[in-house]
């Protein structure tokens, strides 16, 4: 009955539907189908230029998914509840190290595992510890433990707001780094890290996994998939579940309470929203996401070191939120794409340009203009050497600079981020042929 009447609401369920119109339902289904076909068709090779990603084009996309999950959590805390936190990296770390403690195996190599409590005061010569449990234990536990730690620190965090909360949570990251340094048998070497349990699904500790994600092969005897494709689908499925949960959260009583606190904490309390209680819930849920994201990231990478969970990672999430658009799932996803995926593209692009330096022609001229190869220091602002100090800077050094500039630009000109730009664009056409 509602066909052709997009504004007719005959129930509140309709009013809060995720995809209120058939158009949106169709678009979502199409996007899912498109992604699936792209991955299955091995990138529809023509669509993703070979020079950009090469044969392993799927890897950067897969790598971004754990960040997307963690960013969803950060959005719940900062975008939905309005609590600016700089401790997200810490909670990702909690998740990652929970995963390794539960799912990792003793190295089996040079040194045996000496558990923490037997090693008090030695602080040396410990091997790598882990219980070797399957993923269906370590992945949820990574989230749960991170959430518990979130609740544990919340008494300090929920009583402060704004800048003070940011300072408190900055403290967390440093505490985290310190603990990691104290527990090398779990965290591995401070610089080089340790190995993580692989992404595969086992019932218990048996040798061959029930579903193997690390080797090419047939899935369920139906489709032949490569390792990358398997891992992508696995992580993507988790992402979809987490997205659905995050989207549903804001439509519930809890979600509305969180948003009320964001919009004005005093007003929320006057309306009967117990502020501290809900801030704690926000913290817990956000940490849960961070934990899951951290565990998946470390596990997919295979090797992560404590230093990766530093303040810089937390700032990346701030960038994701501000550039993408705080408070919305779509904005978060846009931010992740922009902040996490784009640098990887740029990195590859730089590498490709460096290869074209001497080839002559237009591309070579552009490359010459942008790049500096070796030490001789010509004009280009980007150095091809990854460890170049000072000017010209390497791609890796350029990234944080660009984030910083973008955060400033977005805060001043478009506080609602990329998603805000999209909203403006959409409203322009929605209002057609009027402006209001």
């Amino acid at each position: 009955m509602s066909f052709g009447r997009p504004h007719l609401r005959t129930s509140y369920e309709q009013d809060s539907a995720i995809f209120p119109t058939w158009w949106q339902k169709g678009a979502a289904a199409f996007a899912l189908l498109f992604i699936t076909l792209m991955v299955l068709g091995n990138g529809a090779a023509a669509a993703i230029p070979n020079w950009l990603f090469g044969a392993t084009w799927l890897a950067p996309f897969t790598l971004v998914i754990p960040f997307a999950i963690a960013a969803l959590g950060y959005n719940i805390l900062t975008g939905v509840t309005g609590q600016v936190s700089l401790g997200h990296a810490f909670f990702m770390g909690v998740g990652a190290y929970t995963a390794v403690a539960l799912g990792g195996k003793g190295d089996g190599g040079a040194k045996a595992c000496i558990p923490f409590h037997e090693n008090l005061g030695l602080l040396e010569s410990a091997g790598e510890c882990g219980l070797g449990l399957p993923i269906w234990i370590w992945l949820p536990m990574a989230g749960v433990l991170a959430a518990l730690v979130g609740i544990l620190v919340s008494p300090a965090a929920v009583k402060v707001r704004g800048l003070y909360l940011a300072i408190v949570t900055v403290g967390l990251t440093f505490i985290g780094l310190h603990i990691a340094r104290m527990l090398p048998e779990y965290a591995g070497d401070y610089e080089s890290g340790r190995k993580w349990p692989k992404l595969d699904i086992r019932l218990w500790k048996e040798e061959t996994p029930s579903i193997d994600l690390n080797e090419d092969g047939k899935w369920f005897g139906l489709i032949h998939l490569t390792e990358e494709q398997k891992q992508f689908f696995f992580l993507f499925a988790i992402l979809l579940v987490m997205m659905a949960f995050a989207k549903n959260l804001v439509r519930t009583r809890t979600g509305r309470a969180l948003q009320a606190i964001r919009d004005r904490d005093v007003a929320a309390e006057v309306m009967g929203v117990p502020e501290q209680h809900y801030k704690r819930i926000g913290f817990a849920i956000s940490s849960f996401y961070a934990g899951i994201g951290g565990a998946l990231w470390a596990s997919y990478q295979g090797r992560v070191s404590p230093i990766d969970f530093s303040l810089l990672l937390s700032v990346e999430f701030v960038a994701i939120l501000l550039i993408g658009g705080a408070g919305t799932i779509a904005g978060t996803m846009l931010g992740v794409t922009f902040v996490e995926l784009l640098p990887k593209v740029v990195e590859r692009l730089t590498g490709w340009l460096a290869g074209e330096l001497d080839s002559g022609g237009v591309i070579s001229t552009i490359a010459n203009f942008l790049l500096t190869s070796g030490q001789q220091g010509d004009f280009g602002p980007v150095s091809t050497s990854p460890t170049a100090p000072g000017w010209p800077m390497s791609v890796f050094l350029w990234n944080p600079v660009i984030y910083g500039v973008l955060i400033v630009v977005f805060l001043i000109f478009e506080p609602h981020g990329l998603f805000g730009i999209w909203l403006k664009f959409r409203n322009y056409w929605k209002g057609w042929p009027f402006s209001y």
Partner: protein
Amino acid sequence: MVAVAENPSVQSSGTGYRTVASRAQEWAKKAPTQVAMRDKDLGVWNELTWGEVWDTVLDAANGLLALGVEVGDRVSIHSEDRPEWVILDLATVAIRGITVGHYPTNPHAEVEYTLNDCGAKIHMVEDQEQADKVLDLPAAAYPNVQKLIYLEPRGIRRDPDERLMDWQDFLVLGREYSAANPGAVQARMAAAQADDVMTFVYTSGTTGPPKGAMLNNGNADFAIEIIGGTPERTRGRKLPSPKDSVLTFLPLCHVAERIFSTWHMVGFGVVLNFAEGIDTLNANLREIQPTLFFAVPRVWEKLHAVTMIKGNDASPLKKVLFRPLMKLAMWIGGQRAANGGNWPIGARIAYFFGYFLMYRSLRERLGLRRCRWAGTGAAPIAPEILQFFLGIGINVYELYGMTENAAVATLNMAGRNKLGSVGEAYPSIKDSVRIDEKTGEIQTKHPGVFAGYWGKPDKTAETFTEDGWLMTGDVAEWVDGTHIKIVDRIKHIIITAGGKNISPSEIENVLKTSPFINEAMVIGDRRKYLTALIAIELETVGNWATKENISYTTYRDLTEKPEVIAMVEAEVERANEKFSRVEGIKKFRMIPKELDHEDGELTATQKLKRSAVEDAFRDLVEDMY
């Protein structure tokens, strides 16, 4: 009681005459889960099915029986449009009572007059505001009112008046009565007659006090079959059906809204959607996107004005497209008007592009995207307005009728639409309309003609010719021998000092096509030349003034600004170009206040009470001569 009359559409059977109530019962039996009404509450359109509606009607009917309503007793309703209005209306007809509606805007004095004139036993009020119009006077002022049923309990003084009763309590009373006397309502329904009066519709009373026109079951049945059952009125010749939606927003006590809402609903299963109020009309239209839409000219003018203002206020790119496309719409409309509403090939092609660029979204914004039939009536409308709506693809038809003939007189039909005319006689009753050769008055004779004015046999007699034709009081002329064009009310025709007959409403309508002019009254009877009193539209003129950097405080202040007067003068000059010199407006004055029903300057249907306005602003008028 007279036996079932010689009515062509009589369906007499053992179960009594087919009233609007028994039609509703048929729908409830046939399609109990089908949606019958939607009513917006707290942002959500709650749906009521036929089963639910009929159950409530039965409860209400039993409640009326419990309160001792006899055959022919009056039940009056004073409320905005809402489901309970229709439900109590149907319940009253079911037990052979008579429904009387009051305009929600009626002030105290008018309520006192009409309520006592009809002598209703039961009076239903919407809320405290309407209840107070009765309660503020001592009980002796309303000798007949026994029960005052209220819908919104907020603010109602419960204790002091034992006449008060809550709607819910009333329904409970009905259920108790029905348990004790099963089948009582059915027995009344089975005894229904064609000449049972089913409603009084009070005429708007531009002259003298309102008169209660009595319509009986036969009239209603005739109106449903003729107006609803004329497939020629829509393109594609489709009768109304449960797939159609209407937005109910004009007062239900007016015969037009009763026909296009209640009677279309019981006759054809059309879904009623109750607008929250006249102020939310635009928003509600957008939500409902009705397929059948009847509105008075004022609403069409407003929709047109809103389009123009918003379009010219839009961002640059939109404006660049808006202006030529509006011109194109007028061209398309002109082409269609010249072809009876059909699409010449050129207009079709132009529309194709306009549709994708703008008309589709414009219609969506107006809420008329799915509209397959739109009507205008109850007052004259400027053809330019209709031309515009035809141009953006809305099939709008002017029709004509009045309370006294159950609104059955003439209409424009699809493919034979003539702008400026009110159409032709209904095809199934071609000989029901004539124009008196001597006076030029339009007269009708058919089974829809009313039973008379309540308690005023002398007035009733005055409205009929000796051979039994109803005199409408409107002067009309033939267009091309088939269509009829209304000139004016007989009473309004101006004869100037020079002896020329002039129809003021023709001039007034042209003036009112300006978005800045809300109301105009042309004066000149037995005078040397024509003058006009003009009331500006606060919203548009205010908007204009703000843009021109003219600061103003009140409505009156705005009317006195020299820039505003100059602007209105230009509008008047523009209108004058369309008429001969004698018909031109020589002078005009601005009415310094917004005309209002409460102050007696407008009727409840927003029609000008000419004598009242002339009296109130006599000094302005004299100043011009």
